[in-house]
């Protein structure tokens, strides 16, 4: 049952990634694209968690944690760039 749920979840997240990709591609505003990228990172974290459960392997946890941290930093950096040009004042 869990395996099936994981399969479904994987497909759902894959779909979500596709949707993110669509928004990223379409924009139209740069804010939309950054948002889409940020969401994509969150969804990739979800994928990693699912992959971890699928393989019964918790070694990927750090990757997810790091992704959470780093996704934030890049989102901020993109935003700061659009707001101020100079990301480090």
């Amino acid at each position: 049952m869990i395996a099936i749920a994981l399969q479904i979840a994987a497909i759902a997240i894959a779909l979500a990634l596709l949707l993110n990709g669509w928004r990223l591609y379409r924009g139209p505003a740069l804010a939309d694209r950054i948002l889409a990228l940020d969401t994509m990172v969150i969804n990739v974290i979800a994928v990693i968690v699912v992959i971890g459960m699928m393989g019964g392997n918790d070694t990927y946890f750090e990757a997810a944690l790091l992704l959470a941290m780093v996704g934030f930093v890049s989102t901020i950096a993109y935003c700061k760039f659009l707001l101020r040009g100079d990301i480090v004042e």
Partner: protein
Amino acid sequence: MPLMLLMVLPFAAALMLALGARGGRRMHVGIAAGASAAGLALLLLAAPAVLAGTPLTARIAWIPALGLDLSLWLDPLGLLFAGLILGIGLLVVIYAQGYLAKAEPTGRFLSFLMLFQGAMIGIALSNNILLMLIFWELTSLSSFLLIGFWRDRADARQGARMALAVTGGGGLALIAGMLLLGQAAGSYELATILTRGAVVQASPLYPAILTLVLLGAFTKSAQFPFHFWLPHAMAAPTPVSAYLHSATMVKAGVFLLARLWPVLAGSDLWFYLVASTGLVTMLFGAGVALFRNDLKTILAYSTISQLGLMVMLLGFGTPAAATAAVFHILNHAAFKAALFMNAGIVDHETGTRDIRRLGGLAALMPLTATLGTLAVAAMAGLPPLGGFISKEMMLEQSLHAAQDGRSWLVPLLATIAATLSVAYSLRYATAQFFGRRATGDVAAPHDPGMAMIGPSIVLVLVALGFGLLPMTIAGPLVRAATGAVIGGSPPALDLALWHGINPALGMSALAVVIGALLLWRRAPVARWLDGRPALDAKRLFDGAMAAIVARSRDASLAIHAPSLQRYLFMLFAVAVLFGIDAALTPGGLPAGTRATLPASPVAVVAWFALVVATGIVVAMQRQRFLALVFISVIGLVIALAFVHLSAPDLALTQIAVEVVTILLMLLALHLLPKVPPQLSSLPRRSRDALLAAVAGIGTGWAAWAVMTRDLRDTVSSFHWANSYPGGGGTNVVNVTLVDFRAFDTLGEIIVLGIAGLAIYALLEPAARGTAGRRLREWRHDMPHSPERHPMMFVMATRLLLPLALLVGLYIFLRGHNQPGGGFIAALVVSIAILLQYLASGFDWTDDRRRIGEHPLIAVGVLIATATGLGSLVFGARFLTSSFGYFHIPLVGEVELATAMFFDTGVACVVVGAVMMALAQLSHVAQRAARNRDQADEETSA
């Protein structure tokens, strides 16, 4: 040993002169003359034995691998040449003392002259043809320096360059010829080679050898059509001309022909190549000499003609002709050196060398005129001078050649050449010394002092002696030298002015009579010639050279356009070409048969995202910000791939590096154009796209081919098995990095450290100079929000910083056993600090930092290296790791590994380098902003 001393003397003198260049003129002349005289004395001491048939030899092993030894010998031919070189050298040195103005740097001049003398002596004494090549090239070089001695004069520089180009080029051909000769003869030892004439002439290489050697000899001896450099070498100071162009350098070619006569002469090819070249040169040189007006130029063409004569004689390939050649070498050396000195004296006294502006000097300079006239008589081949005897011998040999079945043109043309030489010789003397009085620029020229005139006296006396007492003065030497030339016993020698009435005497007389007539009727021809556009070899040569240089420059500039695109295109094209080459090997690049893994929907979607994102990056490359966003997507997909494909360490690294890279690019993009215009044309883009597609498909296919092959036993099974027991860690990747292949990692962190240093060096001065000005003039190209530090972000960062640092520590500590390690931890820490920079700005954050980047990098490298060295203390190899498990009460089992120290070094360097790059870059932006604000204030105020 006397040979070695003989060899070393001139070089030692050259060195002394160079070192003592600031010394007095007397000292200089003393050294040079002393060296020459000492050499001459050595030679005279050795002469009896050599002439009696026992050559002196000396050998010092030098380069056995090349068959090149310092092997010298002194045989009669060498004796003859060395005698000329030293004897005339001595006279020239004495003459130069009088000739050179007080202000001239005699030290340098004589140093070059002695260098040249040494090189010539080397040629004469070499018993190894490779050694001879060395001296041969040295004569080219030193004559370049001597001809160009008056460096301020354009004609001197050009003359020197031309001489170097022609004789140097010939020298290179000679190198090839000599090497082939050595190959064919099986030895580079001259004495050995001389005994292998039959072997060499039977070799298929013989024509090539002969052609190449002759190229060397003919260029050096100014044979037609390589003669043109010689007249322009007359830009040299007259002592140089007297030395190089009478007795020594130009004779080196003749010497070479004589030297190799036993090996190369005798064939038809030899005759046709050598004799005809000599004949044509003799004729041509004499003809031109008649119509030149510069004293030294006339002498130069005369020299060309006389050299042609000698070459022709050697080309006949008979012992008798060789005898004539040898005797003429002596004669020519004597009278031509005297004549050059004479021309120098006239030039010196009258201030001109133009024969048309001179006349009747006999009255003003009787001694000079007498000596000049006598020397000219020798040149014209008039009795009772030595020149007469050798000229007659030449005519006789030309006749013999015809009788031996060669063309009758030979004696005919030889006679014509003799006639012409009579004509130009007579003109040379009469126009200067007799007739209407004209004295050039000087009112009352007079005979010079003994230093200048003395050497001429000696030379003219010798020339007279060659005519009056030939057998006494020259006989033994000529006989022995001829023997050496032909490599056997010489024919009976009978040098005398009078051999009775014979065809040669008739030809000689005819030449004198017609020559005189020719001179009488010369004027109309000269006028006619003046009207013709002269075929000026110098202009041709200069023109050709200029054209070659210009074309070379165009080609070089065209090839080396400063286009990175071209560099990269070539590199990619070569790689693609190599790919095609590999695909064309038998069997090609087949895929393997290994079972593949099924792709999950997520994998397909991720792949799709990667492909699309790459496409967008390429398509939207000019929308730079957007391109960066899509680069992030690609990085994300790759990180996901690493997670999916069992590479957690890689995923962590990829994720962390990615964000740092993006930050870096954003920082740079701030100061770059955001949406630059399109550059390349459509065909160009299509070409690049095609290349890119091929490269992509090739790389992808190679990856596919490898992935579908079964894995062989890799060395990594050892790593797997030894990771825990031998390396003390279960994360095999990490143990590989800090243990099995720690040396790689040491190199890798050094790369990072260097990057940090280089970046600092790049950016530190960026606020000054041109870049600084541009930064000051920098204007924002996007509208900016006035808010520098958004509150929520700053607040969150205060919590995130310690949290992220904790995560970094965690990843560091567990790296040996679980995914993580020093590098990733350091990146996490760097990102945490960078976040603080982003939130609170450079100044605020930098003020609160405790450790600078420089010490971090330095300490990191030191820690890593010191850890490696630590193992030496325990007698183990560099970078040997050690670990142990310790039981600590309450805490339990704790592992301590030296690899941790190493990893600490890694982490220090990584933090240092990353922070260096980003902080410095952001600082430049900071300074730009600050400068802008200042500028704004100034304008508004």
